[in-house]
């Protein structure tokens, strides 16, 4: 039997020590009629070789970045992951430990998390980072709750229409049972109009939620937006792309009060949506309103520097219903991955990645944008991702790219919440993200494949979906 290590002799001797006849004795507290009288209806157990063959079979049906060139985006990006990240994160000492309640037995994790907090502060310019939340969407929701507690304004949240629609959905869910109005300002130009945002802000507004770069890939005037929020006493919450900070002005320098992020770009594989890494940072004065774990430095009884779980009086295991969040298990191992990733890149590495993404994305945008049937949706500065407007249905262009060995997208029609900003063009738009991994040859080949079809017909033809 898999993963059971007591021999029949062991079992007998254990039962004798206990003074029980059989294992059934212990289960007498479960009323007899509630106990299953037949096995669960589940498939039979598999040996390791059988399991591996089964998983390989399932994996072979999928098409990931190992079989196609990935130019997909919308918050999840195909950045290069150095081998050292996997090597360290696959140490059992890291991945089979749990929450570091016993500091003496957990200095490895605790110090790594303290380094994570520091790196994220260095990256963002913010004062404090916690030790991780689930992912970008919940990090944003937690930031909004924080803003409510800080401002005492519980009735209105203002969100830009250029926010990732799934993050907006998560926020809607978290606010379901609160009497709080969620107002969305459409961004038909691809970025927010600061004047319109200013007019929409009022003294009831708890916070303004901004994404930088936004879901269309475009760069918002973050500084002016933060300023507008502050003018009515609201907080500015920014959801940022960590890699963009190798080029863009930091959230702190732009005036952000709470900066959150999806940390997937920092050495975490796409793995169909998770586990990823929620990042949440804030100003020093708001630290006691933060959700999640915080690691602090202190000294031990011999005066040695060490690290502990800190300010736990905010957390659910102490404060219960008055806690700043219900989070317990977080994304520790992903925070370790991000720490290793940033340590490997260092300042220059991050700058290089950001520059490469930016140059290659602009090259791709220029080349794709000049093809018949394709154009850039917005005339706005962008970083590594841009929105294409296609002639015809965007999903047909995605199908054509896939047939040529490329993954583009997502198409934006799949997000009903973006329709207000995209209008009638929604069905014709898709995202293209270009990371440092893409080469000129790949981009040229994609352009070529589109061009060769375009020359044969005026409208794109569906090539059908592969089985």
């Amino acid at each position, binding site marked *: 039997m898999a993963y059971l*290590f007591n021999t029949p002799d062991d079992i007998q001797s254990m039962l004798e020590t206990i003074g029980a006849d059989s294992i059934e004795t212990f289960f007498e507290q479960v009323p007899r009629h509630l106990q299953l009288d037949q096995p669960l209806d589940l498939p039979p157990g598999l040996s390791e070789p059988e399991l591996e063959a089964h998983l390989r079979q399932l994996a072979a049906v999928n098409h990931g970045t190992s079989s196609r060139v990935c130019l997909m985006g919308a918050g999840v990006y195909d950045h290069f992951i150095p081998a050292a990240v996997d090597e360290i994160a696959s140490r059992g000492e890291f991945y089979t430990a749990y929450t570091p309640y016993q500091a003496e037995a957990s200095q490895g994790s605790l110090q790594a998390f303290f380094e994570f907090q520091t790196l994220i502060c260095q990256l963002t310019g913010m004062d404090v980072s916690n030790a991780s939340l689930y992912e970008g969407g919940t990090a944003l929701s937690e930031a909004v709750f924080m803003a409510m507690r800080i401002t005492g304004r519980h009735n209105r949240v203002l969100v830009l229409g250029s926010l990732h629609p799934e993050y907006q959905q998560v926020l809607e869910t978290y606010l379901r049972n609160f009497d709080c109005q969620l107002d969305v300002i459409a961004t038909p130009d691809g970025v927010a109009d600061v004047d319109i945002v200013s007019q929409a802000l009022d003294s009831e507004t708890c916070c303004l939620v901004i994404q930088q770069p936004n879901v269309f890939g475009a760069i918002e005037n973050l500084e002016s937006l933060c300023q507008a929020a502050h003018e009515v006493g609201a907080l500015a919450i920014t959801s940022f792309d960590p890699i963009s900070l190798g080029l863009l002005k930091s959230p702190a320098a732009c005036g952000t009060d709470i900066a959150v992020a999806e940390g997937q770009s920092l050495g975490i594989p796409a793995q169909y949506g998770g586990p990823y890494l929620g990042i949440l940072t804030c100003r020093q004065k708001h630290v006691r309103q933060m959700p999640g774990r915080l690691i602090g430095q202190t000294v031990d009884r011999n005066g040695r520097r060490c690290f502990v779980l800190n300010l736990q009086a905010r957390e659910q295991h102490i404060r219960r219903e008055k806690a700043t969040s219900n989070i317990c298990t977080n994304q520790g191992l992903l925070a370790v991955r991000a720490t290793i990733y940033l340590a490997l890149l260092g300042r220059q590495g991050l700058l290089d990645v950001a520059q490469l993404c930016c140059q290659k994305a602009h090259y791709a945008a220029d080349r794709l944008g000049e093809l018949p049937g394709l154009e850039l949706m917005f005339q706005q500065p962008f970083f590594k991702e841009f929105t294409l407007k296609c002639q015809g249905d965007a999903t047909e262009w995605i199908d054509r790219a896939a047939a040529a060995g490329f993954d583009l997208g997502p198409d934006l029609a799949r997000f009903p919440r973006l329709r207000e900003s995209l209008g009638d063009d929604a069905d014709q738009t898709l995202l293209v993200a270009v990371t440092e991994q893409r080469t000129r040859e790949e981009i040229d080949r994609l352009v070529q494949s589109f061009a060769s079809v375009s020359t044969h017909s005026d409208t794109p033809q569906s090539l059908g979906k592969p089985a």
Partner: protein
Amino acid sequence: MRNTLATELIFELSQSGRRAACYPDCDVPQQPIDDLIPAAYRFQDDGPGLPELTEPDVIRHFLNLSTLNMSVDTHFYPLGSCTMKYNPKRHERLAGLPGLVDLHPYQRTCDQQGMLRLLHDMQDMLGEIAGLPAVSLQPAAGAQGELAALLVASAWFRSRNETRTRVIFPCSAHGTNPASAAIAGFQCVQLNNSPGGLVDLDELTAQLDNSTAVFMITNPNTLGLFETQIEEIAKRVHDAGGLVYIDGANMNAIMGVTRPGDFGGDMMHFNVHKTFTGPHGGGGPGAGPIAVREDLAKFLPGPIVSRTTDDNGYTRFELETPANSIGRVRSHFGNVGILLRGYCYLRTLGPDGIRQAARHAVLNANYLKSLLADILPVPNGEYCMHEFVASAANLKDNRDISALDIAKRLLDFGFHAPTIYFPLVVPEAMMIEPTETESKLTLDAFAEALHKIADEDPEFLHQAPYETPVSRPDDVKAARQPILSWSTDDGRDSL
């Protein structure tokens, strides 16, 4: 043996001009950056002040750091309520397969059919284990599963035009229960346990009325006891018009033996990182899928994987959001990497293996409990389920040895400490969960260490541990002057 230089903070190891990761030259025609992004949007100083290290610096640093941890791979880790069972290595290899690890969440569904089949079958397996057929895999951890299910409950009541405002739970509940209830907009009502450690039926009944929304209960409870009156509890909650939520943190005791849906639960969450071997990752990630009654299914968070047969008889898997869904509780599908490991575990064990795992977990706990009965008695229950809460109150009273002292000293013997001071209903609580993947040999050695400790000099124990990299950190100092990130003037010189 310890390399203390390597475990200085990476910021202290940093040396200007060093780097690990190098990238190729730009192979597209470069444009002046000012033409691409206005200067006002870019930083004008040196940018983020990240440390500068070589790859060997980084490797040596983190590998040495890793040796400062206890972990399931290296130590017995009987942390109660956390189910620290062995994490099979095969899962790590399989979760890393191309075609699984490299799938972008927005890939076309025709490109994800293998993954969707896996997730669909995972939904079915969890539904079967729960005895509750409708499953959403989306929640990222147990606490988020609680929140999602409570939002489902509130949507269900709303659909019936009922206003129910109160969530009830025993005082021995995990802190996440009330914290989740608060975010879901409910008032919290806490019950005292009966003297036997179980739910006090009379006290529960006194609190039930038409404002009762949900009764949350962990079963087996946090004392490691099965709530023998669970059917009657559920009946009374249902009679009052409420729903019963089962916190599945302790499913390791009962999987394949009894099912929450069969003993009156309407909703539950699983902790895939506990019960189904998703590794705990130093604090996460987890996965907290929820299973609910059929009539609650339409409110579940989505997407959910559905199975259809097309006109040609081919099976297809699609993503669907239930009709009256509470919405997303997170971006993308879920913590798929952890769900996938749970899938591997369930496929390895099969129905009999799952039941046997629960039986052996309960055997190991009862064996350890009996070995410790003379020094660390268990106030509640004759036999326990997969864990037990012993009390060091006698040792505290007679010898001034606290649960904390014992926990710290255990580290010197090479054992991770149990959960201590939870639940609060047991004085000097030590919550011990050995799991089924430990052998008699380990349990005997652990019990022997505890007996030695019980005989040690209390003064000596107050200073323990001695063999660990650090000992008794000053938590008060940490909280009073929080240092939450490294800076060049962190006062170390004065240490």
